[in-house]
């Protein structure tokens, strides 16, 4: 099996696990972890694609809340400093990517006329 086919298969497995976890979470879990979700059903299908994408995170949070490990203080500690750090890096990386790509661009001026190396016998 090729590497690409393996990746596609892994992605399919990821999606199927995600679907199974969606079914479990949206029927059993969601009401246990969030009182605002109790009795609210119409919005639940909207969550399915998100759960499929990030199901390991869903399982982790579910476990944290179920086991009473959720730390209320952490809810109010936004990672604000990250914006500045990220843009200091991106302000270098983005122009670098852009300029490197432009430098690698081939101009039609590189093309040369054909050269006869050996006349036909």
């Amino acid at each position, binding site marked *: 099996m090729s590497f690409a086919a393996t990746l596609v298969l892994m992605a399919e497995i990821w999606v199927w696990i995600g679907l199974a976890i969606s079914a479990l979470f949206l029927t059993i879990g969601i009401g246990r972890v969030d009182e605002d979700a109790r009795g609210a059903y119409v919005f639940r299908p909207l969550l399915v694609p998100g759960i499929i994408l990030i199901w390991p995170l869903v399982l982790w949070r579910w476990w944290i809340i179920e086991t009473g490990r959720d730390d209320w203080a952490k809810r109010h500690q936004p990672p604000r400093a990250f914006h500045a750090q990220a843009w200091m890096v991106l302000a270098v990386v983005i122009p670098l990517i852009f300029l490197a790509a432009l430098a690698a661009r*081939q101009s*039609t001026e*590189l*093309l*040369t*006329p*054909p*050269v*006869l*190396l*050996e*006349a*036909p*016998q």
Partner: protein
Amino acid sequence: MSDKEDPFFVGYLPAPKSLRWFLAGVSLLLILAFPLFSWAVSVTQEDPGPSGYRFDFGRQTLTGTITLAPYPTLHVTEGSELVAAGETILLAGVGKFGVANRVSDFDGALATLQGIILDRGDLRMLQVAGGRRGVMAAEGEAPTLDIEPLGRWRLSGEICDGKCLAGAMRPGTGIGHRACAQLCLVGEVPPVFVASEPINGHEFFLIGTADGAPIGRDLIDFVGLYVEAEGEISLRGGMPVLIIDPETVESL
């Protein structure tokens, strides 16, 4: 602290009066900026060139001599309004497929093919129709093909898949189209070298290898780039063919 004088917007309440003009201005700016960017990007698109399907001539029925190597071609003996007898054209299937397996019984023999023509300058390709009527045996004696050697050349240009180059996709060349062209070549659609300048009036050369096998990954990796390559050029029944020397291929 927010400035006391600043208007304060709360999403579920009506917008403050002093903000309304500002927001109307921003909205207008956005509604203008979007088509402006659209204009900047869309009107700079390059002309994909004089290529395309010739649906205007309808389905063609052509009879001629099939040659399998380096890629299937048809040397036409009974032509049509569009393709004259004596011309040699490239053959490909529907989609990103060659037709080697469908015409394999006819190497050097006559066959009648049906399909749609794609063309770009002197490059012509028949997209052979699916089904039995696409490829049929034909009666008669197959003429032998004239081979006129033109010598060994160093060319610069681009390796393309002949089908998209001929207009199956417009544009069917370049980096944006690279993966598509690579898939076509993996599917054994005939590859074509687009030379920087014509040789004996020809700028498109069917690419082949010395052993007659389809080109390999080593050449497919160069698709869509400007490259330099060396090889033997000949006219086979009038079709320009470059028997490429893979070791000489270099990106410019």
